[in-house]
């Protein structure tokens, strides 16, 4: 099986504090993965390091056979590795339509911009209704839609979503989960960070549990844990009843 993304022994952090401690994960061609685990243990840091916002101190990242360990964000985006960050506020003083048009910034994305913007408006009709609205006037759910919409405009060959449903109402969460499932069905592989393991299992093929900047457990949908085991994973043996 060909590896689409291959990360080995990754170490990274902020200044003196190390967050990733030799983490290794991979995605094979045609699959999607999920990342879960307690907050502050390196999931978002991992995505930032992959997309080039953070430079790793050790380890390697290969995308589609090419080493991108030390690439800066423009090169990573040009390669098609797209990251929709957590709680993304984007650009408050920019209108929805121009934000989406701007998101097709790389040469490869620009060629598909006209088709993709229509797809984004079909996927998120709320954005189509608010084309001329400034991003700062959007609700949390609408911002999340715009963020995912922007990621789609970048012409992703692998899409990384960091807690796309964080802080949303159950109804909105369902709406976004549906949209993400639709994106996945179009054949875009995903890396999704979420706390909700059941949600992740419904969306992806394999899950990594990340703790203290390392992979502590790997789960595939085939041997999916039940609710109680998930509780045990999060809170330890004593926490589950």
């Amino acid at each position, binding site marked *: 099986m060909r590896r689409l993304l291959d990360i080995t022994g990754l170490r990274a952090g902020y200044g003196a504090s190390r967050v990733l401690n030799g983490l290794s994960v991979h995605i094979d061609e045609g699959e999607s993965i999920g990342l879960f685990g307690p907050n502050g243990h390196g999931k978002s840091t991992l995505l930032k390091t992959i*997309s*080039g*916002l953070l430079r790793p101190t050790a380890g390697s990242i290969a995308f589609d056979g090419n080493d991108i360990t030390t690439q*800066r*964000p*423009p090169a990573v*985006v*040009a390669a098609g590795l*797209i*990251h*929709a*960050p957590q709680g*993304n*506020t*984007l*650009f*408050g*003083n*920019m209108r929805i339509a*121009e934000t989406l*048009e*701007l*998101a*097709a*910034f*790389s040469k490869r*994305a*620009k060629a598909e911009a006209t088709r993709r913007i229509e797809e984004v408006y079909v996927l998120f009709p709320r954005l189509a209704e608010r084309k001329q609205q400034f991003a700062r006037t959007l609700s949390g759910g609408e911002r999340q839609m715009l963020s995912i919409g*922007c990621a789609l405009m*970048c012409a992703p060959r692998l899409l990384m979503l960091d807690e796309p449903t964080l802080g949303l109402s159950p109804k909105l969460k369902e709406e976004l989960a549906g949209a993400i499932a639709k994106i996945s069905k179009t054949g875009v592989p995903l890396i999704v960070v979420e706390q909700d393991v059941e949600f992740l299992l419904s969306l992806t093929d394999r899950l990594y549990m990340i703790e203290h900047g390392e992979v502590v457990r790997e789960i595939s949908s085939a041997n999916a844990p039940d609710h109680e085991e998930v509780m045990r994973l999060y809170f330890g043996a004593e926490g589950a009843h």
Partner: protein
Amino acid sequence: MDALLATLVSGLVLGSLYALMSSGLSLVWTTLGVFNFSHGALMMVGAFVAWTISEVLGLGPVVGILSGTLAAGLIGVIIERLLVRPFYNNRNMLLITAMTTLAAMVILERGAQMIWGARLKQLPRLVPGEVQILGTTISAHEALLIVLAPLILVALWRFTVMTNRGRSLRAVGQNQDSAALLGIDVPVAFALAFGISAALAGLTGALLGSIRFITPTMGSEPLTKAMIVVIFGGLGNLGATAGAAYLIGFIEAFLIFGLGLYWTPFVLFLLMILVLLFRPNGVFGGK
């Protein structure tokens, strides 16, 4: 009545000058969050280079003005690279770059003094002759400035709103990480903003070089006025900055007419202090 119209026209000339200067300052501020104190010196460089190309090399004022614009833009990019970029992620970036761009101003002014000397210089007018506006006679060159300024401002506005390259400058100013994750090269956007702003300053200087004398310190007075303009209009909005530029131009022209040249700067600075006290985000500033 005639005096009133003459004052209006004179305000229009001043406003055009300030609009060109302050829009560049505003562009750098919205993209990098830096106040460029060497902006006036870049204007001076544009004027001197235009003079050298046009008068010393004899290539004429059009080639001169274009060269002055380009040279100032290039030096702007160099200033960004050497004196601003090393401090991007510093917590005190605003303060440090205030000092480094002030240093750039001193270096450029002293450098110009060494290269071109202290003798006053002037460019020939781009268009000869005179024009009647509202019954007032002004030089055709000043009339050109009045026409050119809004055209350049509209072009700049269209660039930042209609094109992805221009939008990327606004995006970088609002959220660097998000911009980077869309594939925008943040340092390239910074250099571009600085370069365009400096080129605008150079163009202004080259155009002004036929109206005023070209000296190493010719940029400091327009920079001071541009500062008053951006405080008046609020930094960060091209439309508000341009509006404030013309407003300050008219106020200045009427103050000169009514109070004389001596007291005008006092009143302008008093106005600036009042704006800072009561409308710290500018007269047109919303938030």
